[in-house]
């Protein structure tokens, strides 16, 4: 499934790199520990987190993730958005809590493994 379709289906608010939503998402990973994401996420995964500082962009770019969904209506820091725009990493926002958004992603067919 493409990022754009996920954005449409789950009514996510795209905050940056909006032109880069054509990517095919390989799966999802949910965690707020950066080292955990570095160790266990896969290329083109969509990452669900509540972290909002700019280091999330570094991690996403390092692991070539498809994009980041920030949960609980939290607003990313300005530096995070600037950096994400530079690195071409879409950051998307939702008011839903992590458990709920992960459930909905899974329902759309986004796997957590494999």
């Amino acid at each position, binding site marked *: 499934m493409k990022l754009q379709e996920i954005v449409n289906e789950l009514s996510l608010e795209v905050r940056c790199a909006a032109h880069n939503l054509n990517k095919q998402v390989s799966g999802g990973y949910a965690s707020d520990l950066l080292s955990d994401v570095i160790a266990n996420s896969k290329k083109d995964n969509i990452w669900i987190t509540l972290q909002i500082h700019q280091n999330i962009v570094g991690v996403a*770019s390092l692991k070539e993730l498809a994009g980041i969904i920030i949960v609980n209506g939290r607003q990313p820091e300005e530096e995070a958005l600037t950096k994400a725009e530079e690195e071409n990493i879409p950051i998307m926002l939702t008011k839903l809590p992590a458990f709920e958004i992960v459930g909905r992603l899974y329902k759309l067919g986004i796997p957590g493994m494999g």
Partner: protein
Amino acid sequence: MKDSIKEDVQVAQDKEITRVQELTYELKVKDVMTTDAVTVSPKDTMNQLREILRIRRISGIPVVEGNQLVGIVSIEDLIKCLAHGEMDASIEEKMSKEVETLYADEPLVRAVSKFDRYGFGRFPVIERDQGKLVGILTKGDIIEGLLKRLEIDYHEEEIHRYRASHIFEDIVADKTSLHFQYNIVGQDFNRAGESASGLRKTLLRLGLHPQIVRRAAIVAYEAEMNIVIFTNGGQISTQVQPELIKIVASDSGPGITDIEQAMQPGFSTAPEWVQELGFGAGMGLPNIKKCADEMDLTSQAGKRTVLRATIYIKERGN
């Protein structure tokens, strides 16, 4: 525009295959179609249709009942109705019921030949199994889709050309080694990760296998984070040789009291506020160990820490 696609495809048939032709085979209808197509109901009137066509600035619309495509109505049908004063007629009476469609999973080349054969401005796109309308395809969509893909190709080509991947083959020496050094400022969380990101880009430009680059970047990232979180600064020094990458991260203290304990996944001495940022989860050193082929850590309390990690390019590099 139709002709240019056709020409390209035809020219390609008797000469070599152009990239555009290749793309019409690679891309599927669903990759380039418009997904949120405007539709009308068969019960709407031609007058309502006129408004929709005017506002949306389009020239034809699929007619849908439930999920099913039942017809298509175009600006030509509308003009006929205007001429005959039949603007109150329902769309159902005036639409074309024999609709030529495309399947979402068909290659684009099929769409190109269909545009050529029928001379229509658009084709509704349906799902193969259920016949549900999923989008609409115009010649404009095809052109835009091809251009976007060509742009991506061009971008990749540019990156490729920029690579110094032949550098090791071009250098004549008994031993070749490239050295990249990054200075890390301690406690600066805003810049944390910049060195690892810089190293990653540099290694990609050298043309190293992405898998190798990813492992090296993770080693550098975790080492950099440790320097940022726990020390007043240090260095990451990277040596790239044709057969291996050596990463040495060093700082001037405060050192690690118990290395064995520090290597345990989940063990962390990071302060709470750092952990709240998502760092200091006690996974950095284990991550490094996992990504490196060899790893060596020397430190004592109150002294400097030196981490050495080696990644073999050839041996495990796919």
